[in-house]
């Protein structure tokens, strides 16, 4: 009955021997060379150009006629850093990303735990529904979502009118109030993120040896204690990784608010990525646009640095 199962393959990794130290071998350099070439060849120049633009004043005329522009030092940065609107957008971007990450990772985890508890056929239903959502292109998903909450054509207003007594949502516009508007956008982000998170975390849960859980229960541990002492330690690295990815994705939030606002976002719906884009392409301020982008990267590195130690441990673990 309780025959010890073969431990899952990942467990082998835990006992893997430490990497050999071969400092003078050419092999690793040859292996990493293609990666390096791709990144350096394709990203180095645009990145350098972007950084250069952020220290310059390049007018439209320069852009169209091949002019070089002129160096202005940190003028673009000081202009942005002194603009209260920039800080509003920074705070908003971080807040929205934080909410999106927390809500989506938690939902993903809860759904994964739920998947463990339901019957097999229900699990299949859940997986199929999530696969459908996952396969739906982000752009299309956003268009559909926006349409669902539309003032004139939306299903949501119609449903609320039908189901909730005593309210009139007939001509309700979800994007007048920025809290409501962002709630819609956050719901959309979470809805799109849950499949990836839940399916990964569920797969992670299946790696938790049942024997360990059962043993903990026998020792008198409650569900929460089992989760904390048995499940969590095994799941933790995975949660850290999916959280990191979520942070990266949600800090770069662009498509959802941009498309939801019909490519003409109000100032209330600017994220940092949208701000940089609008600054460059709507206002033709390529310099401030670039400066915002550079600041965004720095900001994200700053956010990441909060748990850089953790990241490096994972990136480096062997």
């Amino acid at each position, binding site marked *: 009955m309780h025959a010890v199962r073969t431990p899952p393959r990942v467990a082998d990794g835990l006992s893997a021997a430490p990497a050999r130290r071969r400092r003078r071998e050419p092999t690793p350099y040859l292996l990493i060379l293609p990666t390096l070439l791709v990144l350096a060849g394709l990203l180095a120049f645009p990145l350098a150009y972007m950084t250069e633009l952020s220290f310059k004043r390049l*007018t*439209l*005329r320069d*852009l*169209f*006629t091949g002019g070089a522009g002129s160096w202005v030092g940190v003028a673009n940065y000081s202009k942005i850093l002194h603009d209260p609107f920039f800080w509003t957008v920074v705070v908003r971007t971080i807040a929205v990303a934080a909410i999106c990450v927390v809500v989506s990772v938690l939902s993903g985890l809860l759904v994964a735990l739920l998947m463990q508890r339901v019957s097999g056929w229900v699990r299949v239903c859940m997986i199929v529904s999530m696969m459908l959502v996952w396969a739906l292109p982000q752009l299309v998903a956003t268009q559909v979502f926006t349409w669902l909450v*539309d*003032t*004139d*054509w939306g299903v949501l207003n119609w449903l609320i009118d039908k189901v909730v007594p005593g309210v*009139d949502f*007939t*001509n309700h*516009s979800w*994007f*007048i109030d920025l809290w409501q508007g962002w709630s819609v956008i956050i719901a959309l982000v979470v809805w799109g993120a849950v499949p990836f998170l839940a399916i990964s975390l569920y797969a992670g849960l299946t790696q938790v040896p049942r024997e360990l859980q059962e043993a903990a229960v026998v020792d008198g541990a409650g569900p929460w204690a089992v989760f904390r002492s048995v499940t969590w330690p095994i799941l933790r690295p995975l949660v850290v990784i999916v959280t990191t990815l979520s942070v990266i994705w949600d800090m770069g939030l662009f498509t959802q608010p941009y498309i939801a606002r*019909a*490519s*003409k*976002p*109000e*100032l209330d719906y600017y994220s940092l990525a949208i701000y940089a884009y*609008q600054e460059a*392409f*709507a*206002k*033709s*301020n390529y310099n401030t646009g670039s400066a915002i982008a550079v600041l965004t990267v720095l900001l994200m590195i700053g956010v990441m640095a909060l748990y850089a130690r953790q990241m490096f441990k994972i990136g480096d673990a062997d």
Partner: protein
Amino acid sequence: MKRRIAVAAAVAATLLGAAACGSSKNTTTSGNPLDGKGKTLKVYLMVDAQTGWKDVVDAASAKFTQATGAAVDVQYQQWANHLTKLDATLAGSDVPDIVELGNTEASKYVFNGAFADLTSKVNTFDNNSTWLTGLSGPCQADGKTYCVPYYAGARVLLYRTDLFQAAGLKAPQSYDDLVAAARKLQSAHASDPKFSAFYLPGKYWYAAMAWVYGAGGSIAAKGGDGKWAGTLESQASEQGLQKWVDLTKTYSKGDPTKDENDQDAVYAQGSSAMLYGNAWESGAVQQVHKDPNDPNSAMVDTKVKGKVATIPLPGLTAGQGMPTFLGGSILGVAAKSGKKDLAAEWIKDFTSTASMTALLAKGVLPNSTALLDQAASVKGLEAAAAAAKNSWFVPNAPGWADVEKSNVLQQMLVDVVTGKKTLDEAARAADAQIASTLNS
């Protein structure tokens, strides 16, 4: 048959060659600039031409190819984000020879060296002395001409004849008439929660600015010091805006955060009495294509089929129409193009009187006042042709397109209609944005 065409082509080529010899004697080394054999013109037109009048484009290209021997590669662009792509393209070296732009977008490119100077060729274009100023104005910079008017559109009032009749109303002759009619219609349909006596979505700035100009106001003005200043906070502008806001808030159930993009679909539902739209929208609200991607597909009637009429929108000043925004497109030759003479030649063919007459039948206005009278006799275009005679246009400032693209005016309107700001606060905020954008 084939032979006859070949002969005709040979004759044409000979004639052309002969004609060209006379003028190009001195430049035999560089050859005839209009000899386009083996060359291909790259033309960016907007998608409207593809769905609306591709045959006119093809006819002009055929004529051009026959005359010059050059091939034409027309690429149809989508409006969404097309300037983003254009900016990037013009920054590179592989540019299109001819670019279509909305007339409000033009000045950004005209003033910043993106287009070639066409001044010396202006006299060769048909109707150049009677071009609509709303189209030719943005093409001018420092007394030179950088682009050519293509077509225009004017906005008119669409109203439901059946609803007006049922309420015992006639088509409004004055603005007071219009408001009175709206009041009567709104109360007659009080039971319909979606009923708008005058459907106006909040971000419809082409409409709102018509009220501003109708009240004698304006968006921005250039001062004596050469600096631009927003003038939306002026008394006249605010009066006009206030009237638009009153009308919108009282008689429209439109979403204050929407633009006019889906107003035809809303109107087609039958729950709106009046609408401010382009002349062609009168057709669009009454019938939709079964296949929207195929202009030849069967038409499906909407709920308002046969119940819509158009008139010029009555203005705020007694006896005058509301000045209409003269939207439209222009054509420019890229400054980086290596085939500027050929490009100008194609534009000449595409904006000829013959092409413009063909365009009239498609429900758009021609590029010249001389042809407007002709437009007035085309069924469905009467109101638009009349409205176009009294038009307003955005400030002719190099940075205007950026004001538009950064949604300054929409932001102002949304703020006012949703009550986030008072009209004065919103107008002042917009003026500050306009000044900083236009003067940067």
